[in-house]
């Protein structure tokens, strides 16, 4: 991709920080280096992901049989709320942009850092403050929040649990998201290496760019909504609670005006990662580059106009429902454009099924199921039957976990050698991908059937006829826990005493593969000049770093 980019630096960013005085952990916490910030996000986000998994396993354990099993109903309510809040606000929204966006956006653009490194550190700190507020809300008087992650009115005004503190935490986390978005947009506009026009940017950059705009525009809406809820709780101003003269439907609108675009904040960067991994392991330039780039922007745009499909049964005019249903169907178009182009890229490619690729295959399978069942929910008639049932739960776990979660792992398997300079156990990683597939479908597929049969979501107890499938699902949750533990084990042991990784183990050609692993503090000794298309594999021959087994002549 670039000519004459030979980075010579003895020290990696692990050994050399941006702070001169600070040592040890402070040299990380005060670092403005985008790579260190990315790693810190990875570390904290992984902890929350694991916490969320444990909470999920506890929920499944409670549901293994009808009636009380291991906890009472109130505890169950708080646990499913925390599972949602942690997974959504602390893991999946910041997940890919904050970890991989931070680490790889400047690398792929050929920049030394993001546009505003200090703002970047501030975003991380704000994220931490948000996290601390969530933690405090668990332990102070009143007890942990029990409203569900959607904080629906009027319950969230009337419950005595610590709603205000928990949603204020979401407010703070929102700021972190907005600042990261601003930073990324500016970085893409201002810090592209010479020769890198918009249509020579890697597709992960395109996806992150589209996401950043959603973060900037949509997040303030949830901020305002949260402030209004607090105003209502503290001062009894009637905004959403009908008893005070407010309108609970208004809350749902305002909540989903943010939270639906937020779904695309979660999934778009994941799609960007897929567009990176597929060409690398098919050794073929991406099929339909512009179509994929533009479909990211199209998803970001249409994603704003579909929020009310969460509210088909909440009470709104039939005309509105039909319009929102139609717009929802429109989102399927750019999503399908991406999937077809990925498959088109694989056609006649020379496919190398390494772990990142296998995870992407998991993604395509699971995300397709998630996407197609989304159409069932977007259709007015069928939605009325399955609304607020396990069908919805299964759908969004296929999209969010099967989509974004799977790609979070794929990205980690793809870029871990670059980030750490160490290699994980490839064989275990491949087994993990298969195990994940089995665990995932055992855990979530029964929920589609349960939902269709009429099992309502969020319920603590259920009728005996649902017991068998609930049991299957719970067994799936144990398999999933095992998979997650194995994944963590693989990475931690690689970090501690894994073999040294090659600088370009997969034969990638985007700019991050032109520099050593782990990258030096300022990434590039000299800012590269871009001459190739982003996925032009002919340049592999002339690159400094190529995989073992591929000769340089």
């Amino acid at each position: 991709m670039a000519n004459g980019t030979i980075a010579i630096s003895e020290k990696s960013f692990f050994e050399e920080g941006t702070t001169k005085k600070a040592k040890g952990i402070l040299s990380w916490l005060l670092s403005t280096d985008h790579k260190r910030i990315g790693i810190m996000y990875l570390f904290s986000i992984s902890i929350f992901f694991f916490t969320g998994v444990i909470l999920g396993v506890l929920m499944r354990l409670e549901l293994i049989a009808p009636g009380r099993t291991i906890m009472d109903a109130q505890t169950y309510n708080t646990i499913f709320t925390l599972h949602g809040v942690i997974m959504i606000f602390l893991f999946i929204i910041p997940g890919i942009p904050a970890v991989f966006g931070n680490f790889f956006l400047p690398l792929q653009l050929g920049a030394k850092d993001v546009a505003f490194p200090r703002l970047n550190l501030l975003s991380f700190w704000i994220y931490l403050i948000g996290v601390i507020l969530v933690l405090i809300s668990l332990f102070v008087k009143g007890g942990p929040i029990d409203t569900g992650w959607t904080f629906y009115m009027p319950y969230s005004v009337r419950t005595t649990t610590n709603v205000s503190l928990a949603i204020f935490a979401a407010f703070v986390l929102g700021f972190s998201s907005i600042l990261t978005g601003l930073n990324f947009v500016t970085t893409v506009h201002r810090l592209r290496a010479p020769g890198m026009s918009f249509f020579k940017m890697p597709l992960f950059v395109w996806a992150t760019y589209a996401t950043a705009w959603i973060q900037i525009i949509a997040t303030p809406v949830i901020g305002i909504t949260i402030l209004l809820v607090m105003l209502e709780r503290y001062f009894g101003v009637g905004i959403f609670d009908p008893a005070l003269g407010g309108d609970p439907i208004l809350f749902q609108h305002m909540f989903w005006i943010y939270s639906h675009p937020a779904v695309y904040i979660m999934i778009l960067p994941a799609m960007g990662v897929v567009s990176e991994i597929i060409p690398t392991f098919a050794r073929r330039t991406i099929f339909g580059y512009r179509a994929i780039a533009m479909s990211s922007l199209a998803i970001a745009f249409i994603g704003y106009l579909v929020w009310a499909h969460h509210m088909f049964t909440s009470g709104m005019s039939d005309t509105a429902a039909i319009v929102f249903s139609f717009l929802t169907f429109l989102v399927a178009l750019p999503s399908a454009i991406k999937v077809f182009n990925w498959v088109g890229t694989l056609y006649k490619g020379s496919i190398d099924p390494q772990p990142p690729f296998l995870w992407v295959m998991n993604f395509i399978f699971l995300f397709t199921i998630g996407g197609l069942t989304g159409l069932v929910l977007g259709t007015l008639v069928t939605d009325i039957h399955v609304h607020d049932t396990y069908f919805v739960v299964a759908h969004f776990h296929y999209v969010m976990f099967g989509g974004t979660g799977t790609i979070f792992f794929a990205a980690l398997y793809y870029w871990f050698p670059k980030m750490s300079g160490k290699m994980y156990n490839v064989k275990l990683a491949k087994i993990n991908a298969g195990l994940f597939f089995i665990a995932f479908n055992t855990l979530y597929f029964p929920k589609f059937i349960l939902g269709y049969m009429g099992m309502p979501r969020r319920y603590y107890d259920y009728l005996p006829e649902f017991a068998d499938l609930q049991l299957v699902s719970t067994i799936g949750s144990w398999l999933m826990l095992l998979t997650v533990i194995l994944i963590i084990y693989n990475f931690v042991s690689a970090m501690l005493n894994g073999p040294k990784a090659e600088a370009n183990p997969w034969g990638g050609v985007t700019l991050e593969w032109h520099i050593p692993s782990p990258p030096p503090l300022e990434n590039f000794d000299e800012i590269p000049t871009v001459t190739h298309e982003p996925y032009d594999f002919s340049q592999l021959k002339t690159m400094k770093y190529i995989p073992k087994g591929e000769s340089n002549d």
Partner: protein
Amino acid sequence: MQNKIRQLLYINIFIMIFSFQINAEENHIEIGIDEKLGAVLNGNLIFTNSDGEKVKLSDVITKPTLLAFVYYECPGICNSTLTELAWVVDRVDLVPGKDFQVLTISIDHTETSTIASQSKIDFVSSLKRKFPNTAWTFLTSDSLTISKVTSQAGFYFQKVGDEYKHSGGLIAVSPERKISRYIFGSQFNQFDVKMAMLDAKAGKTNPTVAKLLQFCFSYDPEARNYTLNITRIVGVIMLLGVGIFFAYLTILKRKRIIHK
């Protein structure tokens, strides 16, 4: 603090109970105003103006009109209603006779055009601004016409002894005689009146400033007044900010960063 909140709560409850009682009465309303938004007043009704001429209502209402039902020799609230009306039309930021006009219709069928004419002299002469004589019309009519026009407007009154019991308020009527707003109370805000007149005019061209006003304020039928549409304003400010940011990034040439 807690005491204050409790006090506020009691006041709230009191108001709620009280307003329920009013609502209960409105089902078989005898005296008061029952909103008939969107109703069209019959243009063929014949009235007598202050010059003693017979006029059709459709000839009188040709522009946005501020309509008040009163009677001119009223010892009660109509006098203050009229005084307040005069106060507000004196100040409202619209050109009388062009952007709007005022129309008072007597609900007392015994009143004659002479009385109306005296009343017109009293109130129009009290105005400080330049006010065309034709921009404020004082009408009288027979009891049947009066009862028709008032019931079309949802204005209900009763004669008790020598006096009429009725409530105060203004009605905004469009040039097509359609009722577009009610402004309640005995004191009027020039801003409310301006907004009501602009609304009545809607469909025709409005000055830009007026459009902006209509964009930022919307009518809340529950509270019966104009409220600042905060979500709209915030939304526009945000999109503008984002637009400027995007324009800045794309239009302004990027400076080459000099690397050491």
